Every structure is written in C-alpha cells, then in structure tokens.
C-alpha cells in the first residue's frame, strides 16, 4: 500500500537519506532498524509529510504522490506517532487528541461527540489518562500514551510508531502490543521504529535495516538472527565498537547523599570514584538526566548534599563546578549544548573562558584561543577541521565533538556524559568511546547516563538503575547485562541491591 523508491533527502550538504527503497503491505508490521542517525527518523518524517524529499518517488495505494505535506499525508491515511511529542503543552488531553480535526457542528465544537470518541479510543488501547488534564502536567509516559491514542484516533491505513515504548512500563507496553495486533488484524500497515530487539522479534513481520542513510537490506524477521541484525546495523562486529577499558577505581571524587529535585528526582545517592565509569540506566524520563544536571547546578536541589573531592558543595552553579573540575556534557546539543550560530571555536572554549590559559582579568587571550583549541580537536578528530565555521554547519557527530572538546580545555577530573551518542554515526561513536577510555585510564572519573543498554554494558564498571526519580538498584561489573538492567527498569521487587 506504500511504495517508496530511491528516496533521497539532503539537508544543505548533509545527505540524510540516500536512495532508499521501502514498501509497506497492508496488515503488516514493518520494523525499521538502525542506529541513531541512520536515517530512520528522516524516512518516517518524509512519509508523514514533515518535509519534502530531494529525489525519489512515492506511491500510496498505487497512486503516485508528487509531494507530501502533513495534511496531504494525513488525507492519504497516514498517522504518525513521533518521539518528540506533537502535543501542545497548554491544551488538555482531549483538545490535543482532536487538534486540527475537531468534530464540529456548523459553528461550535461538538464536545460531547469528541468526548465519547476519545473515551472509546482510550478504552480500546487500555490506557488511563484524565482527558481534562493539561498536557504539561502529565508524565512522559502519559504523554506517550496520549500521542499513541492521537495516532490511532483517525482510522489510519498507515500508522507510524517511533519508539513508542521508550518511556512505557512493561504493563503499558503490553497493552500497546495488544492494540497493535488489533490494528494489524484490521489491515492497517504499521511502520515500527525501535531499538529493542525483543519487541521487534515479537511484533514485526519484516525488518528494514538502515545505516548511514542507506538501506542495508529488507528481510523477513524470521530469516535473521539478532547477531546478524546488529551487525548489519552497526556495520562491524559489536566487540570492535567498544574498546576494552581497564577500570581502576580509586578514591571517591563525587558523591551525592539523598539529593532531590522537585518533581523529578527524589533521595538519590550515588558514588563515583576516580578511574571508573559509572553508568546511570533507566527509561527516558526516569530522573537520570535530572540527577546529572542537579550535580552540575542546572536543577535546583531541594534537599540532600553533593560532595566533590571530599568537600560539600553548598549551592552548585555551573561556573563554580567547572572550576572545581566537574564538567557536564548536555544531552540535547541543539537546545543546551551548542551556540549553533557561533563558530566552532567559541563553542569549544565556551566553558573555559575564565581559565587563565584563555583570559586574564576579563580580557580574552584572543590569539592564544585559536592555538589552544587545536590539540583537543585533533584528539577528537573533528571533521572538517575548520573551527571557524558555525557550529550548525557540522554533522551531528562532529557537533558532539565540539561539545566534548570543552572538557579538554581546562583541568577536569569528573566528566558527566548525558546521552553522549544520541544522533551520531558509528564512527563518531567509537571516537567518543575512545575518548572516555583515555580519560578514565588517565585517572578521571566518568558518570555516563545513557538509554543505550549495550553502551552501559560494555563501558561501565558499575551501573545505577533509576525508576520514577529514584535509584532502585546498583549493579556491579559482572552483574551488568542487558537482561538484569532491563528487569530493574520495571520491577521493584527483583532483589534490588540498595544503593550505597
């Protein structure tokens, strides 16, 4: 029912999608598999009409479609559930469900009909969300449910689900799977994007693997083993991607004692030692990121203590934490990591402007700045090595290198990485891992918050698992496997070792 041939999408000079063919049959669940930045989201955005394609052709139900806009795509029967929620925070659940397709009489809205329809849909899916709550008051999981219900509201023929389970609990995910089975039986074609192999195995009929914007292959799910799929996705055997790091935990450099952040984090205590990588695992929105940000002074800590190098930090603020040798690399590069319009150089030195190497009495050592960034950028392998270009002109991986370079611009002994490999290609990924290795082996401490389980499994010495703002388990060296970590995501009673 959907047939794409030779789909190509370029953003400026960056090729996000390169000649991809894709077909979707009715009543099929077609999984899209690929690393971050492989082109999955570009592909589904093209189908949803978010932006037009550069080359290629598209047929829906045998009809050739020349260009898609969100409306056209919707009229053709496509409904999309994205990861970044297309919800308006100030409106209620019900208002969001019907946004852009309100049921109305001649003049006024038919609120009763909308209410009935919404209740029916939520019943079908089995979710429970108060229809009159404003979106901004919901948890991430609830928003995800609203988004899914919104996608299923219209009787779509093609449904796109982009990592729908990223913040759902097991029980909620089960309900979703049941709903998907129902839709499938009705002949709806579903494009399902996910990282979780088990899910894909269970739901999908066929799978398409993308890497670096190209299609690697489309095959029946029964025909491929997990190992082959992963290798197709990563492009090399997994073992080669992750360096072996010798962890030599020494003295405690960073400790939190029962810190809380209003609404998102409660009573979190962790310990990080010099010479080790400590992981933070958990669903998106479980408080991992808030913990990192609280330590760096970006969230207001309401209670508890933070100790850095044996000294209690009264009120952490970013500039004093940097001075004390703690650096945080934000998860969202565009929103919080980079001043995109400014040159790469300014982004690299941004966190070290008060360092005596770069300034004296408020005066920049302007000419020295250009020399000072050379070595860190060389270590990280910035490509192209053109730090005077605006940060926005670099690819995702190289933008991340600009962010990470800031930790090499001044003496830093504790590095906090928040989702360091989101949206970057395999090459950049392995360079990030290499950087971590060299940092740790030179005696620095690393706190790594990540939603990529393999990353945590292969790189860390210890892992704290978080759920709903609390630390629920601490796993050590050999105990860290994807299965054990995942179990703690959902289940409170699985013999959680209380965090020290």
């Amino acid at each position, binding site marked *: 029912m959907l047939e794409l041939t030779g789909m190509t999408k370029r953003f400026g000079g960056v090729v996000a999608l390169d000649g991809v063919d894709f077909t979707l049959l009715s009543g099929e669940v077609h999984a899209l598999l690929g690393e971050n930045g492989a082109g999955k989201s570009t592909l589904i955005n093209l189908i*949803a009409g*978010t932006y037009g394609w550069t080359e290629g052709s598209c047929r829906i139900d045998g009809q050739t479609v020349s260009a898609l806009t*969100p*409306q056209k795509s*919707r009229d053709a029967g496509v409904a*999309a559930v*994205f990861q970044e*929620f*297309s*919800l*308006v*925070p*100030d*409106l209620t659940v019900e*208002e969001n469900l019907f*946004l*852009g*397709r*309100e049921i*109305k009489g001649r*003049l*006024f*809205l038919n*609120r009763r009909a909308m209410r009935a329809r919404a209740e029916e849909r939520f019943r079908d899916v089995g979710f429970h969300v108060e229809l009159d709550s404003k979106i901004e*008051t919901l948890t991430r999981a609830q928003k995800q449910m609203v988004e899914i219900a*919104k996608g299923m509201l219209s009787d779509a023929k093609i449904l796109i689900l982009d990592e729908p389970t990223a913040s759902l609990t097991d029980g909620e995910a089960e309900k979703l799977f049941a709903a998907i089975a129902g839709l499938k039986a009705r002949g709806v074609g579903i494009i399902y994007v996910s990282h979780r192999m088990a899910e894909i195995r269970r739901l999908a009929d066929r799978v398409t693997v993308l890497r670096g914007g190209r299609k690697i292959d489309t095959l029946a799910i029964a025909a491929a083993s997990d190992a082959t799929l992963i290798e197709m996705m990563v492009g090399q055997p997994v073992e080669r991607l992750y360096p072996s790091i010798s962890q030599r935990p020494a003295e405690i450099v960073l400790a939190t004692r029962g810190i809380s952040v209003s609404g998102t984090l409660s009573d979190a205590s962790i310990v990080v030692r010099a010479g080790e990588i400590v992981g933070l695992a958990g669903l998106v929105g479980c408080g991992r990121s808030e913990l990192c940000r609280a330590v760096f002074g970006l969230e207001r800590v309401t209670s508890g203590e933070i100790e850095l190098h044996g000294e209690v930090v009264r009120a952490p603020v970013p500039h004093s934490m940097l001075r004390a040798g703690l650096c945080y690399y934000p998860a969202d590069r565009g929103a919080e990591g980079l001043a995109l319009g400014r040159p790469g150089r300014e982004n690299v030195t941004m966190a070290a402007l008060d360092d005596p190497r770069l300034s004296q009495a408020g005066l920049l050592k302007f000419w020295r700045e250009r020399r000072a960034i050379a070595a860190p950028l060389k270590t990280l392998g910035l490509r192209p090595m053109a730090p005077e270009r605006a940060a926005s002109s670099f690819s995702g991986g190289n933008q991340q290198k600009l962010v990470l370079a800031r930790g090499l611009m001044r003496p830093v002994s504790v590095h906090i990485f928040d989702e360091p490999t989101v949206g970057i290609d395999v090459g950049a990924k392995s360079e990030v891992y290499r950087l971590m290795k060299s940092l740790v082996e030179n005696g620095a401490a690393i706190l790594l918050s990540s939603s990529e389980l393999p990353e945590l499994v292969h790189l860390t010495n210890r892992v704290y698992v978080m759920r709903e703002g609390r630390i629920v388990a601490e796993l050590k060296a050999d105990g860290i496997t994807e299965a054990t970590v995942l179990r703690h995501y959902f289940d409170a009673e699985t013999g959680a070792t209380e965090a020290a």
Partner: protein
Amino acid sequence: MSPDTLRRRFLETGGIVILLLVAVAAAAAIIEPRFLNRLNILNVLRNFSFLAVPAIGQMIVMTTGGFDLSVGATMALASVVTAAAMAAMPDAHGLQLLMPVALALACGACVGLVNGTLVARLSLSPFMVTLASLSIVAGLTLYYTQGIPIYGVSDAFVYAIGRGQGLGLPPVLLLAIVVIAIAIILQRRTALGRHFYAVGGNVGAARLSGVRTHRVLITAYVLSGLLAALTGVLITARIGSGQSTIGGTLGLETIAAAVIGGVSLRGGSGRAENVAMAALCLTIIANAMNLTQIDSKFQTLVLGSVLIGALAFDRIVQGRRANV
C-alpha cells in the same frame, strides 16, 4: 488537592485578577466615596469598554505567541477615517452612517492583514513588524490630519452611540460585553479558538496536526486590527471628532491588561474574562487617580509599575523556572 495543584488552579482560573479587582475597587471606594456615584460608575464602565475591546484583540494575538504594538495607531486611523468620511457626506443619516464605520473597520482589518501576513508568511518578528506598522500607520494618520482634529462627525452618530443609553447602560458597554462574550465562546467552543492556543503553545505540533497555522495567525492579527478599529470608531462617537492622537497610551494599556490578565508572553494561554477583569482594574485605578486629582502623568507611572509588579509577582509565585 496538594498545595501545588491548588496554586496552579488559582493561577489558571485568574484568581489573582479577581483578588486584584476586588482590592482595587474597595480601595477606590474607601479613598474616594465619589467613586460609587452612579454617573462615575457609568463613566468607569464606558472607559472600561474603550480598553477592554482592543485588549481582547491584543490577547488573541498574544495567545498565538505574538504582539501587536500597532493597536494604538490603528485606533487613531479608524477615528480619523470615520470622521473624514462622515465629514465628506454631511447629509448622511440612518443606516448610511454605517458606511464610514465599515470603512474604518476595513482599514483596521487591512492593517491586521498586513501585520499577520508578514508575521506568518515571512516569519518575521511580530514585535518588529508591528513596531514598523505602528510607525507607518501613525505617520500616515498624522500626515493626513497634521495633528488637527477632524470635525463634522454626524450628530446622530454621536448621540446614538457615544452619548446615548440602552437598557440604562452606555451602548459602548453593551458592545464591549458582546465582544467579550464572543471572545469567550470563541476560545472555548470553536476550533479556531483552540487553534489560537495551539499555534502559540507549539507551532510545530499544530502544523503536524494539520492546523493551518498561517491562516490562524493572520486571522489573529486581523481580529486585533478590527477590534482596535472598532474602539477607534467608538471613541470618535464619544468625543465627536476624529483625532490622530487618541491611541497614545491605549495601545500600551492593552498589553498591560493582557499581561495582568494572565496572558503568557510566550503564547498558548490566556482567557478573555481575565483580560476583561484586568482591563476593569486598570480603568478603576485611572479613574480613582482622576477623582483624587493626581497628576495625570503619574498615571503612566502607576501603569508601568503595575505592569512590572504583576509580572514580577507572577514570576515569584510560579517559581523561577525557564528563566532567561
């Protein structure tokens, strides 16, 4: 209910505005007994109408995440157009008098159309666009009149709308009530009303959901221009001449009313009834100051302080999230 949700409820339902309104009214009545005089009350309500109508327009634009600085200039334009058109047809009577009014309203809608088109289609900053159109419209109006009032406004028009009474109330007040009522219904019961919020709350999401964001934005600015023009017409009926200076501080006051009425500057929220109450507050304050013969210059000072104070209060109550 937890204190947190209670606080949110309080803020959302405009609890602050109601408190402020009661406090201001009580203070005015205590300080100056003449405030409660029937004629004075009528006067307050009339002035309230002149502020509430354009403030509703300002609110609509602000809920879409915009700004309309050209409101005052549009009022003046409408006033001058009405007066000039009436002066050009001195024998007009009855329904013929609606022609100048329609012309003035059309001018207002045009200003809004240009503003909205520039903001929506070229994605220019609403602030700069309306600042420029403020300069252009005010300049044209002043050039045409050279700052001199235009006489020749039809007496029938003045007596019917500006000075008459309907149901014992000034017609302008009735009109203002109708406008406020329509705005409330628009916001709660129509798709367009929801789309205003959606565009202000998250344009990307609105577009993805199939909302025609450009059209919604343009509509908002047209409505604002239209309501500003309507106010200009009403004021002309009240003072009996077309004046290029009437919009002076009113444009600013609409922003103050909207902000005090809880309209977020980032867009996505704001309720007509709260804005109307805030407009009433501001009118009462101005009236009380007039009665106690405080220098009119101090009124702008108070206006500025109330504006900043209301926002500072809001900030402190909401906590200092999403700063910078």
